[in-house]
């Protein structure tokens, strides 16, 4: 804290609306070239592309397996059904450091899966996959953004992967509306009073 106290900040721009204090309020995707489309008119953006832009087919197999392990299909859709792997591809493709992190992170995962013995992560049985993932996610969860230490490559990768999976899933129609049950963005004549019993 003490070094922060002495920091003089030079700020380029203050947001034009209210400032939210948490980085997680800003999705990774917002830093992606916001508009490679000609306009910001709501697009049929949900339409999934045929192929990933950045990931190779082999990498994409792993991305899909990982995404569905983090958010699996249950009584509501899972990450793959929600198009999360393509969202991750879109975001990672926009940033050189993410490209590097994801390429190396996915390679690390294949090593852990035993690629030298011809095994690939997405082909492992679920129990083995979960066994690899559990300590990784634990370390990633413990690592808070902004903390001074830089953890190992695979932990940084998992932190980014889980965050992007959460972002992509919970902003998709399947995640936000079907799974979470979002009910807003409607026209009401009166603001509804509370239905809960307190």
């Amino acid at each position, binding site marked *: *804290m003490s070094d*922060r106290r002495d920091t*003089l900040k*030079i*700020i*380029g721009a*203050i*947001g*034009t*609306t*209210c*400032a*939210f*204090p*948490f980085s*997680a*309020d*800003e999705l990774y*995707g*917002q830093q*992606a070239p*916001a*508009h*490679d*489309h000609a*306009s*910001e008119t*709501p*697009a049929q*953006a949900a339409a999934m592309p045929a192929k990933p832009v950045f990931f190779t087919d082999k990498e994409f197999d792993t991305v899909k397996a990982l995404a569905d*392990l*983090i*958010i*699996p299909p249950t009584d*509501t859709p899972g990450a793959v059904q929600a198009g999360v792997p393509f969202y991750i591809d*879109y975001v990672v493709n926009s940033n050189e450091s993410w490209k590097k992190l994801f390429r190396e992170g996915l390679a690390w995962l294949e090593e852990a899966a035993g690629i030298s013995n011809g095994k690939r992560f997405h082909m492992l049985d679920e129990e083995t996959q979960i066994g690899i993932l559990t300590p990784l*996610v634990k370390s990633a969860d413990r690592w808070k953004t902004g903390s001074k230490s830089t953890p190992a490559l695979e932990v940084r990768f998992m932190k980014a992967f*889980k*965050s992007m999976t*959460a*972002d*992509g*899933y*919970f*902003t*998709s*129609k399947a995640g*936000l509306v079907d799974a*979470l*049950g*979002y*009910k*807003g*963005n*409607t026209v*009401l004549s009166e*603001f509804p009073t509370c*239905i*809960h019993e*307190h």
Partner: protein
Amino acid sequence: MPGKTYDVVIVGSGASGGTLSAHLARQGVDVLLLEGGPKVNTRTDFNTHAMPFQFPNRHIPTMKPGKAGFDSERTRGIGGKSLTWNAVAWRYSARDFKGKTYEGAGEDWPFEYKDIAPYYSTVEKEVGVCGNRDGLEDLPDGEFLPPVPMKCSDEIVKKGATKLGVKVIHVRKATLSRAAFNRPACHFCGNCMAGCDVVAKYNSADVHIVPAQRTGKLEVRHNAIAREVIVNNENKVTGVRYIDRETKAEGEVSARSVVVSCACVQSVALLLMSKSRLYPNGLANSSGHLGKNFIPHFTGGVQCFLGELIGKPVTNDEGFLDHAYVPSFMHNRKRDYARSFGIQFNYQNRRAVGWARDIAGFGPSYKKAVKDRYPAFLTFSPYGEMLPNPKSFIDLDWEKKDAWGLPLARRNVFWGDNDWKIFHDMTDWSRRILEASGAEILAVSDEPRTNHELGGCRMGKDPKTSVLNEWCQSHDVKNLFVVDGSVFPSASEKNPTHTMMALAARTAVYMAEQLKKGAL
């Protein structure tokens, strides 16, 4: 553009410039409003009812790119930031105007609450402000439309806060809770800051500027990016030079008086750019105080889940974002700092679920943990008053130019000891109130963030330590005015726009009189 000399040219069409232009035009003054951005049709140009999955990057944009004025640095377009504000509208209190007198901290305003109170009323009666009359010393009541009911989560926080002797009140907003002024009531879609498409929320373009144009006294020139306020050898300003945003052609307008209302930092930047033989360090800067005393609000934040709502059915509680508020309560409590803070809360939108990243684990249990917490998520954003200090100022970076060749403004911010004390105390109080409300705390912000740009061109009685007098009129150049957040000598902890609008209404009366007398 030769020919006509206007009574007044106003640079900037946001809440301040918009209010001022309408008030002057109604009093028969000939006004030209220069706006750096394009026309905006608030009924069709916003992505008001969008969902994140309609965009490849999942971000709901505030404006279409056809409206290129709307970037992160500046909000150019008729209506300015009033198009995308959250419409929170407080009156500043007697104490807010007299920090130095009460506590020896910061700077006094050159007038008192009673001098501006009638203009708060004027604004409330013409734009519509909803709220409850709470009878609080530090948050004066106004002439309100009925308040909007609190959210379920607000009621839970209110119960928790009450245990600690802290009040929670209805928010006050320049958004219509009932149809009025030929505008419909709010329909609670939760998209206020993406731009309201029915003008239930105040914006200066639809509420002030368009109706004032019907008087025939107000002209608007779009896409005119001001680059210099011109001063002659008789120490009078004579007009404004501008660059066409699209063609980059140079233009010029003549006027008997000039008002700069470009949203705080940009107003200061325009005056600093306007160098002349008389004012080599920026126009109206004989005091050397132009750019100094930059005092934006600082915010903290706590994210949490209300225990009572975890696992409860999801309801439609987007509303008009925040419905409740914790008004300043520290002035009458013992503390080791000057000034105070207030807490805005629950202004998140349920379409943003960024917090899901920070829920532990993966797999079905992770998915369920997020779903259970979804209806219970809540944010607290306390706002503190920053005191002026020599290391916080606005200047120009002559090395870095924008697309029109104008130097970029630089905001230098340094938080002093008093600011840090408020920051820590408002963070502690936020946590205590939430814990008393049965909340599971997810994250606590440990560093202030700036919001609501204020100061840099302050008003005051002493021409040696201030740039403007109490009428927002330059001490140096009698026919130059500045009306926006830059003129605030002290920031209060309260959202500032209502006070800017009241100042604009007050300044309009003075300017019209002075013009009539031929004194400008």
